[in-house]
């Protein structure tokens, strides 16, 4: 039985369709990330789950129970907001205790649970601090503790790391992951950062223009993106646009202007012979091959453990490679190749009307 089930949940704001009917099931103990650019509907979906927004149509189930119209206070969900939304007039401990006091726990019990929660997020001894005395990372942990201490059925997080610097973000990502692994609490996490999604999630729902474009594990999304949008959104990608010339047994060939040889690759569903498509080549799949395709080096970027090289192909196409060996500098000509089985031929992401666009009648 799923922990949470969205059944044809849709939301409009006036004439603007923020969310097209969405069906989504989240398993007990699963960490599901809603990943997408701003305006894709991911926060809308999260707010519907929390009860802060009412869906225009559809139903929301927790277990077997339909909670579509239930106010937030009866849902027993823990929410971590983007800028934490900690109560500025309360201390750290008072913030964490808030949900327990509302639930009329005994004061001794509250003290014990708050202390436990502080320990869980490694803020022992900071209970008496005022919120404004804490760093961003510490505030983030208080928000997490406040949401978790009520033992919510579902933990909801709305871009909780958005305000942190890069180093801290990585630390807190791993901490959230660690807490999830130890508690196995059903979690819905919203972010536009693909790295966060890849590090923490069991499954990722990639959203665009109010709908879920693809739902799957990190590996699914990275290795088998359904279209060019997902390919661009997950990981680094090179996309070469062309026309499909042949399609058979799940393999397709794509002609790309300026490149003599058609590119062969695994065809994704939605690729048809004669239609435009794009070949996905991950930067780590491109290496030196004598006698291969000729490419001009445009720039070389040192990234520490690897060197990324931007290449220009005949026909004006540009590629990034992360596996080119040797010393070279800008304008050198290199010969490159890749293994045929790492190429995917993807349909172009459909140009649906963007949100708030033409469907305003």
């Amino acid at each position: 039985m799923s922990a949470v089930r969205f059944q044809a949940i849709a939301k409009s704001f006036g004439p603007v369709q923020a969310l097209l009917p969405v069906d989504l099931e989240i398993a007990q103990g699963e960490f599901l990330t809603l990943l997408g650019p701003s305006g894709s509907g991911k926060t809308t979906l999260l707010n519907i789950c929390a009860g802060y927004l009412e869906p225009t149509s559809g139903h929301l189930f927790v277990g077997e129970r339909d909670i579509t119209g239930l106010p937030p206070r009866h849902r027993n969900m823990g929410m971590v907001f983007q800028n934490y939304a900690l109560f500025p007039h309360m201390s750290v401990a008072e913030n964490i205790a808030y949900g327990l006091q509302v639930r009329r726990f005994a004061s001794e019990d509250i003290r014990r649970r708050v202390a436990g929660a502080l320990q869980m997020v490694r803020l022992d001894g900071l209970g008496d601090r005022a919120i404004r005395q804490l760093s961003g990372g510490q505030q983030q942990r208080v928000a997490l503790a406040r949401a978790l201490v009520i033992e919510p059925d579902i933990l909801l997080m709305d871009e909780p790391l958005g305000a942190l610097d890069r180093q801290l973000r990585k630390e807190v990502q791993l901490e959230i992951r660690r807490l999830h692994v130890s508690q196995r609490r059903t979690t819905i996490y919203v972010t536009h950062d693909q790295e966060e999604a890849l590090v923490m999630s069991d499954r990722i729902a990639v959203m665009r223009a109010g709908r879920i474009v693809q739902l799957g594990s990190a590996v699914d999304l990275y290795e088998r993106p359904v279209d060019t949008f997902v390919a661009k959104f997950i990981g680094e990608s090179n996309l070469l646009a062309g026309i499909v010339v042949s399609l058979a047994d799940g393999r397709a060939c794509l002609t790309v202007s300026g490149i003599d040889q058609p590119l062969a690759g695994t065809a994704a569903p939605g690729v048809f012979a004669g239609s435009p498509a794009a070949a996905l080549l991950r930067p780590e799949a491109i290496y030196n091959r004598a006698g291969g395709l000729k490419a001009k080096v445009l720039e070389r970027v040192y990234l520490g453990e690897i060197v990324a090289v931007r290449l220009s192909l005949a026909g004006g196409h540009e590629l990034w490679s992360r596996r080119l060996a040797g010393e070279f500098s800008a304008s050198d000509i290199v010969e490159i190749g890749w293994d045929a089985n790492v190429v995917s031929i993807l349909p172009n992401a459909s140009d649906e009307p963007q949100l708030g666009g033409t469907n305003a009648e």
Partner: protein
Amino acid sequence: MIGRIALNAFVALVAAFLVLPIVAVVPGAFSAQSFIRLPPETWSLRWWNTFFADPSWRRTLISSLQVAMLTTFVSATAGTAAALGIARCGPRVQTVLTGIFLGPIVTPVIVMAVALYAMALSTGLVGTMTALVAAHTMMALPYVVLNVGVSLSGLDRRLLLAAAGLGADPVRVFQTVTLPLIAPGVIGGSVFAFVTSFDEVVLSIFLAGPAAKTLPVRIWEEIRVEYTPVVAVAASVMLVLALMAAIGSRFAARKLSP
């Protein structure tokens, strides 16, 4: 350097222009003579004794305080509720409602006085404390609505969502989150309300009767008859009380602000 000295001197002059005439009334209250002269030639507490020994002065002081406190209570409660309601409306309705609530501030007081006098006559409320409190509340309410409105506009709505998400019902959200966070605005508005009522004289002259005469009205009546230092004493008493209200509110607001 010279520029700075000149600037400071100018600032001092402006401050003196604003404050001195008000402060000047205080020495007048300590005169031993029967008329106000600055500075007094001889000093005494004679007029303070007169003021506090005279039941009619004492009564007006007490009814002034009563009216001001009732006005503060009514306008703080109603004004806060109004500001909360206005904040929930759409931007256009907000503009209209704010305009209506600020009306009494921009309406000439004498116009309000005439209108209210007519109303009070027809309802038989002339000379009652009810009429005074109602009239003063009209004048004081806008300040509460404004102050609380400013506090509310700085209130992060997500704090209310967070509290609701943690299980709090709307009443509890209001008590534990909204009210503490807008308290500085409520207190600031209340002080304005108190002071507005405490020194209101135009409406009070029209509406006050022998049963409910406020201190400013008594001062007004007194100086039309004779200009003795007891008026300066009454003015000093008002000054001190108003200052106390202002200072007290600053302390309270500082203690409450997060």
